[in-house]
């Protein structure tokens, strides 16, 4: 879903810098990145391992900032709340407006509790007074919506009794149960077989589309990004290198790094393998922003 560019961003990240280590000897990881996600929009942040894509998602969730060896500056605004300092307070103020889906659904679920109890906890965090029978009814409906064949049986199961694909569906149902404004998905389904991954991504696309949920997809897989996202940021070693709509980026990649990535991916239509360097000074060239894709102007709260 492409919204008019005037729509208010639900998430705005400005000049985000991050370093790990002691104050005196910190290693920079992010060198001032900016991105935004508008209401109902599907945005991808794509990069290789070590590019900083996952730490960006974790900072946006407020999950990293409390560590004493983490130094973050810049701005992360969600729903008008500044989250650069992170922590429990941010999580409490945001409530259920942001949810996250992780790479490996089976390890993201608690192995010692049945799905039923975990689902009740999720629903209770959105509605403190909800009764068990009402929570179970809503959980069953949510599981049916992600095409789980026997929701009652799934609720009575432990995560290890369900397949990876079923657990991913449970995760999606839980993440969307409280109708978040923004869903962050970090490499969803990467641990699953391709056919299952394709199904769960399709499902996630359909549900978020229907509900107008914005998604920030973190991925290393450009194919997944092309299928899923409206707009794409490419990140390389802590710097954004290219930003465009999915059509712009895949039809007209302009940054040498993006071009190298797209060329290096083996194609099912053939064409062999290109001879490309793993690293090149060209990859450090300035960021390319495609037409109509600039960051929105700064707004004072």
């Amino acid at each position, binding site marked *: 879903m492409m919204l008019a560019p005037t729509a208010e961003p639900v998430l705005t990240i400005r000049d985000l810098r991050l370093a790990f280590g002691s104050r005196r000897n910190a290693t920079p990881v992010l060198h001032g990145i900016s991105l935004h996600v508008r209401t109902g929009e599907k945005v991808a942040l794509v990069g290789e*391992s070590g590019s900083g894509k996952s730490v960006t998602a974790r900072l946006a969730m407020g999950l990293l900032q409390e560590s004493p060896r983490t130094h973050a500056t810049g701005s992360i605004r969600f729903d008008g709340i500044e989250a650069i300092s992170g922590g429990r307070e941010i999580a409490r103020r945001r409530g259920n407006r942001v949810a996250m889906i992780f790479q490996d659904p089976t390890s993201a679920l608690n192995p010692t509790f049945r799905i039923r109890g975990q689902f009740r906890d999720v629903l209770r965090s959105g509605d403190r007074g909800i009764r068990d029978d009402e929570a179970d009814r809503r959980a069953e409906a949510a599981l049916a919506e992600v095409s789980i064949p026997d929701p009652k049986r799934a609720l009575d199961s432990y995560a290890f009794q369900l397949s990876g694909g079923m657990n991913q569906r449970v995760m999606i149902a839980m993440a969307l149960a409280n109708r978040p404004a923004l869903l962050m998905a970090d490499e969803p389904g990467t641990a699953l077989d*391709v056919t299952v991954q394709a199904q769960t991504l399709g499902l996630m696309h359909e549900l978020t589309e229907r509900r107008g949920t914005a998604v920030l997809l973190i991925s290393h897989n450009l194919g997944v990004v092309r299928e899923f996202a409206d707009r794409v940021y490419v990140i390389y070693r802590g710097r954004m290198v290219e930003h465009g709509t999915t059509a712009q980026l895949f039809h007209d990649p302009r940054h040498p790094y993006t071009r190298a*990535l797209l060329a290096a*991916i083996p*194609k099912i*239509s*053939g064409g062999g393998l290109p001879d490309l*360097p793993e690293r090149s000074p060209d990859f450090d060239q300035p960021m390319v922003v495609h037409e109509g894709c600039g960051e929105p102007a700064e707004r004072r709260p």
Partner: protein
Amino acid sequence: MSAILELDRVGKTFTADGHRVVALEDVSLSFERGECHAIVGESGSGKTTLANLVLGLIPPSAGSIRFNGVPLPGERSREQRRSIQLVQQNPLSALNPRRSVGASVRLPLDVHGIGTSASRASRVAALLEEVGLDGDYARRSPRGLSGGQRQRIAIARALACEPELIVLDEPTSALDVLVQARVLQLLHRLRVARGLTYLFITHDLAVVRAIASRVSVFQKGRLVETGPVEAIFSDPKTAYTRQLIGAVPVVTDEEARLRDAIRAGAVPMDAT
């Protein structure tokens, strides 16, 4: 071409907690010398069981495996073990972190008594150079090396005892795409230069298209389709193969057209 490896009605059954699990059933398959033959399948397809059988790590429950025309016995000779080597998915766990890179590459030379003690050091340096690493790497620890460098070292180690067949078990799935492209190039060059045969296990059909000449598709322990790579991608015969190709996330319009046609069961004119 002649067959280097032949599987004749091979089956493998495991028993766990009193349950019989058929991991591989009635597989007959032939690998030609010098080819890169991809084995494709999802989890539970039996592709890793197949690798373990070929490597002699587990015995078949049924059928026989012949190498260079000779049936492989339960207890393999040193020569037979030397001739079939393995490169695994995760190069970090495949290399002993307490051993230098040089010692890891040298170990198979020591085990198989290849060369003299003095000649082995220069052999290690030559192997490292062959995989694109300079000789200084011999003194380093695998810790602190990148995934691509570690995988090159694992390849050098597999080459150390001059194998004829290398089982590559998802050798690039843990690597970033730019690194993957380099390692695939290296594997291709080595196969041509040394006349190696690859049994290339992967779940990535695009990688199959880029590097393999033949592909065999496995589903739930059964071989469902086998043939030249071009044929499988232009006209897959089984619904399962179509489903696998149809699920690949693609990056170009050309790929998308091919994939959509395969999903629909038809094949576009320009794909062949």
